[in-house]
């Protein structure tokens, strides 16, 4: 990848975030280019979720700046935040599903708020639920789902909108190795179609095997930012030893623009 092709989609500059006297993040600097896949690794309480929250601007830095596409944290108006969020898919660590809505409605919500058409929503949501293996649970409510199922609904919602950027906070925390592999496969596929992915995880072993860029966070500081050493379709790096029974669900996923629009460049609509 040549420097000329690179466009920075996430930029974090001299960022600190403190809660009272406690610094959850301190002097963070990092940049993520379009199409990059970055792991954010660190022990519990290192500040991974806090960093992601600052990127989707649910929280703002104490000092420093976050730049996401055209949006700059220091010049952000409250009314433009929704348009940032529509370009950023988010898998929350605690899922954040709406208990009173079915699986289908939860996933559809992310598309509905952008003003997408009913038929497009229906097609896309059906498709994505099939891919995460939950089509048969589409009329169930989140409280009756297993932990792993809830996590997959959260992932489906995050990618439903074909976002330009995907932030995933511990997206495989409740998943068994087989499903973990299929979810990673899905994330890689989304990435291969041009979405920049920033995935927080504590599973160093899982992450190391891909030889991908890894940012190590410890006690609120970046202790190491391993440069990307592998370029290409990450799916080739998935361990073959574990045979995925559910891998078939994910076959044929193509996010690269045969749908109604180019997911990567989708801007705010009204």
């Amino acid at each position, binding site marked *: 990848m040549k420097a000329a092709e690179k466009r920075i989609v996430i930029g974090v500059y001299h960022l600190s975030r403190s809660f009272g006297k406690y610094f959850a993040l301190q002097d963070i600097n990092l940049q993520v280019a379009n199409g990059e896949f970055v792991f954010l690794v660190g022990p519990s309480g290192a500040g991974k979720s806090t960093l992601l929250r600052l990127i*989707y601007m*649910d929280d703002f830095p104490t000092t420093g700046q976050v730049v996401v596409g055209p949006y700059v944290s220091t010049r952000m108006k*409250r*009314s433009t*935040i*929704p*348009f*940032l*969020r*529509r370009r*950023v898919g*988010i898998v*929350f660590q605690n899922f*954040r*599903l*709406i*208990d*009173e*809505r079915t699986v289908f*409605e939860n996933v559809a*919500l*992310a598309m*509905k*708020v*952008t*003003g*997408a*058409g*009913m038929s497009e929503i229906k097609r896309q949501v059906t498709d994505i639920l099939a891919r995460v293996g939950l089509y048969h649970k589409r009329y169930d409510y989140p409280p009756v789902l297993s932990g792993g199922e809830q996590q997959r609904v959260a992932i489906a*919602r995050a990618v439903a*909108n074909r976002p330009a950027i995907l932030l995933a906070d511990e997206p495989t925390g409740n998943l068994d190795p087989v499903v973990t592999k299929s979810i990673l496969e899905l994330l890689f596929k989304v990435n291969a179609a041009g979405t920049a992915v920033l995935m927080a995880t504590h599973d160093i072993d899982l992450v190391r095997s891909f030889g991908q860029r890894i940012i190590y966070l410890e006690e609120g500081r970046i202790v190491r930012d391993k440069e990307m050493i592998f370029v290409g379709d990450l799916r080739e790096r998935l361990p073959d030893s574990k045979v995925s029974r559910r891998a078939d669900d994910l076959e044929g996923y193509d996010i690269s623009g045969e749908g109604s629009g180019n997911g990567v460049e989708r801007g705010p609509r*009204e």
Partner: protein
Amino acid sequence: MNVNAMRYLISESVLMLGRRKGSNIISIVIMGLSLLILVVFLLVTLNISRIIEATREEHRVYVYLEDGLAQNVSQAIQLRLLGSEGIEEVIFISKEEALARFREALGENRDILEALEENPLPDEYRVKLRPELIRSDFMGRMASEIEGWDGVEEVRYGRRWLERGETLVRGFYIVDLCIGAIIFLSVIFVISNTVRLMVISRRKAIDVMKLVGATNAYIQVPFIMEGALQGIFAALLAVGLLVLIYLFGTRYLSGLVFLDPGAVVGFIVFCALLGALGSFTAMRRFLKM
């Protein structure tokens, strides 16, 4: 806002009312019963002021004629009275008839009249005014004017009673207004806070919507429409119960009147706005991130 947005808003609103039926019904019933107090109060006030109005209509001005007046002079006075501003009806009562009526009015004390040797009462005209002119100031002016006419000995209009009645009615309306204001404010407060409790209980869903990129308007509108619908259902509940109370009441009190249809429609619209406003103010707190 495009067609999809409209459809989204409508489907969201319907979804919201459909789920959580339980607590929706609770709030509607809370609101409905609060409103019932308000409409019962309005109905009672309406009927009492009808009674006051009826009493006021009974009020007459008495024009006493000089003794032994020629009939044509008396008739000229009657015509002149009928031509005066605000006079609706003029009835002639002869001195004999007047005495008979007085005797009757004295009731148990009527034997006092037995000591009378001749009829001391004059002929009179009983004048009925337009109800809105039955005020001590207007009647005072009219009385002194008519007293100046030829053949008119005196004009009486029950000044003391009228003034006393006016004070009483004014007192009633002040008390009524105070109670009404208290009820009104309480009911508004109860309703807007009931809606607020509902919104608070959905805080989690609101947060999620914000996080997936819904604009404030997109989040608010379904809630506001839901608040409005709750208001309408509550108003219908209150009006329905009021009809029952009214039907029950007419069995004991004849002549009871009901709120007129325009007022009922206005009330329902008012409740819709109230519910919407309750949602709106409750939402604002959350949406300020």
